[in-house]
């Protein structure tokens, strides 16, 4: 029989304090029973002598200093895990939210996860085909990678995420199980519905596990949402040998929840009021992507975040990009020109692509083509800024060719339909069509032999 502690010493935001407590361990879970018979869950976040501070997941409204009884559970926060979770919907704290009852647990997993020994990782090498030219060719997604999408309010990141989820195919199609874990943090109801509907229409909902924390749900639950999702993903990947794609949206809401929680704890803030440990906290989440030596499964992450005021130097995108293996960045100008997906090619990057493309993976010329497209598109920017000063007519012949290349690149290569699924060959041939708009002498990132083989005209 566990001891029940009646009453609280202090209530402050999502935190409550208890006094006279003993025998409790750090990060242990507690249940708070209210007089009206309802139950809430909390976690130990600080201890000093006989005083314990708990964060309450469901929020503290309605709690008073004497209407609760608290029971400590003697274990960290665990969620039940099972392959039955596929097709189910849970709330941010991992409890069923689809009215289908609780999950019969094959095992329980501590949601905090543990740091993977770097020796036990194997380096991700196999690419995931998304059917989106810009991503496949220029920022290839690799199995086991964490590749975030940096977007802004009102841009089409959700559409892109859905398209990736629908079209994502593992390159070698070895028939291994592929599933999606979707974590929504602080998203609006409509957005959550949009994802649900799209997954159903694609006939994919049977292989999706959803964790939904909507924007009016408690913030402490929001802090738990990605942890629950990743614990599930790790279980399916490393114990059930499945390939798991984790889509998490919106990391900005998550970080803001963390800031709110930190400030109610009275911690010294770092940049823009975010806690000093934001980097470590985000890293603990993103680093759970990967491939483990000895397991055939993998966890690939696509976190989505909206950059406040489209500012890429804001702490959330900044710290994220320092941890993740590249980034896919949306460009508001392209988006408003009606180009979908309007990705800023020069700001985007996939760090792992160099080892997962080329001969044996995609096509031998892939890496040279990608480099040449990047370099050429960078020159387009120079030509455009010059044109805006002296007018397009005054440009040199070469610069005019670059202007044309830039336009065609955006209209034909970047732009594609929401259901258009391009093969790798289609994408690369299209790239050669575009590169052939430039004079041969401008193709300085590839050798003569390659140019002779593919250059048109």
């Amino acid at each position, binding site marked *: 029989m566990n001891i029940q502690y009646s009453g609280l010493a202090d209530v402050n935001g999502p935190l409550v304090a208890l006094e006279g407590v003993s025998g409790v*361990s750090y990060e242990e879970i507690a249940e708070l029973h209210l007089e009206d018979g309802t139950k809430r869950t909390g976690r130990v976040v600080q*201890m000093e002598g006989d005083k314990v501070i708990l964060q309450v997941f469901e929020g503290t409204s309605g709690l008073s200093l004497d209407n609760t009884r608290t029971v400590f559970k003697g274990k960290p926060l665990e969620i039940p895990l099972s392959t039955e979770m596929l097709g189910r919907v849970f709330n941010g704290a991992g409890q069923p939210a689809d009215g289908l009852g609780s999950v019969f647990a094959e095992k329980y997993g501590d949601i905090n996860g543990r740091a993977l020994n770097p020796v036990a990782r194997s380096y991700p090498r196999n690419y995931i085909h998304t059917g989106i030219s810009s991503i496949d060719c220029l920022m290839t997604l690799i199995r086991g990678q964490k590749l975030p999408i940096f977007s802004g309010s009102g841009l089409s990141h959700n559409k892109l995420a859905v398209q990736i989820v629908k079209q994502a195919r593992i390159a070698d199609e070895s028939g291994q199980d592929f599933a999606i874990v979707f974590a929504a943090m602080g998203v609006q109801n409509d957005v959550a519905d949009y994802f649900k509907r799209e997954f159903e229409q694609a006939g994919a909902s049977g292989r999706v596990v959803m964790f939904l924390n909507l924007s009016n749900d408690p913030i402490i639950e929001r802090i738990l949402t990605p942890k629950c999702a990743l614990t599930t993903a790790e279980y399916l990947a490393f114990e059930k040998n499945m390939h798991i794609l984790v889509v998490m949206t919106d990391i900005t809401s998550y970080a803001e929840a963390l800031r709110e929680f930190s400030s109610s704890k009275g911690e010294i803030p770092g940049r823009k009021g975010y806690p000093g440990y934001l980097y*470590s906290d985000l890293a603990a989440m993103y680093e759970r992507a990967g491939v483990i030596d000895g397991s055939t499964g993998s966890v690939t992450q696509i976190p989505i975040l909206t950059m406040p005021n489209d500012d890429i130097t804001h702490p959330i995108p900044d710290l994220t990009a320092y941890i993740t293996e590249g980034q896919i960045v949306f460009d508001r100008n392209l988006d408003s020109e009606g180009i979908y997906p309007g990705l800023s090619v020069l700001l985007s990057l996939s760090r792992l692509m160099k080892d997962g493309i080329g001969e044996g993976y995609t096509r031998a010329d892939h890496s040279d083509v990608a480099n040449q497209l990047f370099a050429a598109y960078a020159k387009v920017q120079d030509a455009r800024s010059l044109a805006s000063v002296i007018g397009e007519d005054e440009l040199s012949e070469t610069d005019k060719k670059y202007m044309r290349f830039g336009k065609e690149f955006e209209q034909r290569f970047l732009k594609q339909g929401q259901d258009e699924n391009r093969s790798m060959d289609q994408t690369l041939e299209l790239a050669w069509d575009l590169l052939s708009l430039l004079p041969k002498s401008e193709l300085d990132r590839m050798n003569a032999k390659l140019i002779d083989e593919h250059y048109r005209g």
Partner: protein
Amino acid sequence: MKNTIYAINGPVIKIRETKDFAMREMVYVGKKHLIGEVIGVNDKFTTIQVYENTAGLRIGEEVEGSGSPMSVTLGPGIISNIFDGIARPLTDMRKTDGVYVTEGSDIPTIDPERVFDVKVTAKPGDELTAGQIYAQCPETELITNYVMVPPNIAKCRVTSAAPDGKYKAEDTIIKVDVNGDEIPLTLCQKWPIRTPRPVTRRIPIDTPLITGQRVLDSIVPVAKGGTAAIPGGFGTGKTMTQHQIAKWCDADIIVYIGCGERGNEMTQVLEEFGELIDPKSGKHLTDRTVLIANTSNMPVAAREASIYTGITIAEYYRDMGYDIAIMADSTSRWAEALREISGRLEEMPAEEGYPAYLPSRLAEFYERAGNCSVLSGKRGSVTIIGAVSPAGSDFSEPVTQNTKRFVRCFMALDKPLAYARHYPAINWLTSYSDYIPDFERYYEQNVGEDFLAVRQEISNILLEENKLMEIVKLIGSDVLPDDQKLVLETAKVIRVGFLQQNAFHKDDTFVPMSKQLSMMRTILRLYHKSEEALKRGIAVADIIATGQFDKLIKMKYDIPNDKPEMFDEYDRSIDETIGALGK
């Protein structure tokens, strides 16, 4: 009375009213024996930072002192191994504890079971002083481990010595008499990580660390025993640059500290270095590399310690007379770990929440680099190359600015260059190296007498291009006079043909100094010949039409590293085609 935990806040714990602990003492916390270090002592509380995850710890659990400061065991078997921030071997941990890093794991740094082939060089009766060598054993195919008298034994006399043979790390090799006490010495010694190992004296720096990277060796060289910083926003290629230096530089041993970075990067180093062959020795690169991995999801306090663990290991091998290069990736994560711990201690923050002692900690770290005459009488050096990850890519933030004060070589990585996929994205205008005057003699004797002059002229052309680009941005390049157009064309050859380097190309990934000089000479030859042609009234467009400029852009791929004679052919071709214009 037992010392028990009174408060827990993340990685920081407190004990009330005790006088049993010394500042910086290593302690064991709780039932799991988590490793911690005392970071604050006063009459009310003793504060401890714990190097492992504190989840599950209870108030009232016991804390045991170790009686000694946070130390690392040094001995044969460190090279080609991978350790966590407090020097526990991760490969062994995987074998015993599975795929996750486990708390309270107490696997020793030096494998006590591994047998080494030891040659004992000291004889009974020998007088030895601190740092002198009494035995040696092969550690890897490349590195011989010299077993030294620990620096804290100033003087001793050998009373007995074991014969040559096979020994384990903790077997007694010799016994020595220190002021009447007989002490056994093994293959290992312990050293506190926060104390620099003593040397006889520092000696002036005079040799560059050759990395085979053109922009580094020819434009911003770093010294053996020097310090360098590589600052850059995300995606600019800090890690890639560090990997390239670690692979190809001519140090004897590389200590690679992955401090708060990605797990996959450490895996990549493990895999790649295991396959790559060192061009000089023909052995695997892992035979000269030590990895310290505290990935970003591992406990933050151990991140703070990992830098010191790495540099202590480097100093240990320096004392044997080796040249060591340390790659610290990234020092910003280390500074953030300091900030995080400082915040938990509720210390008064200075700039951007960093503690006020950040500059002095950075200085202490970089000052442990140096070219030294070591206690055994040999010469050894430690070079520190630290990556800096400025928040928001803003170089005015505290870590970058303070680092700049303590390093003499600054390799600034540039976002616009990285966007244009110009790699390595080291900006030749904002980067600098203070060491060039120190290398004058080295270049004269080993590279070429004209090296510094050639380098200067190349830099001048790049500088001139930068000025001209201001104009070009406003009015386009067509209106420039021909001599200025020639500068732009030449600068393009330098940028694309010389500064850009392809790490994935078999010849281009490492380029010897002699080829770097030949490339620069050939580019300048083309420039000078073209200038002459301009004076003869030839239009710049006609000079470019000869194709010589495009040819030089590709010479990095077309001329293999082992065929320097091909440059003569290039020179002849330049003389003939450009010389023939207008005749």
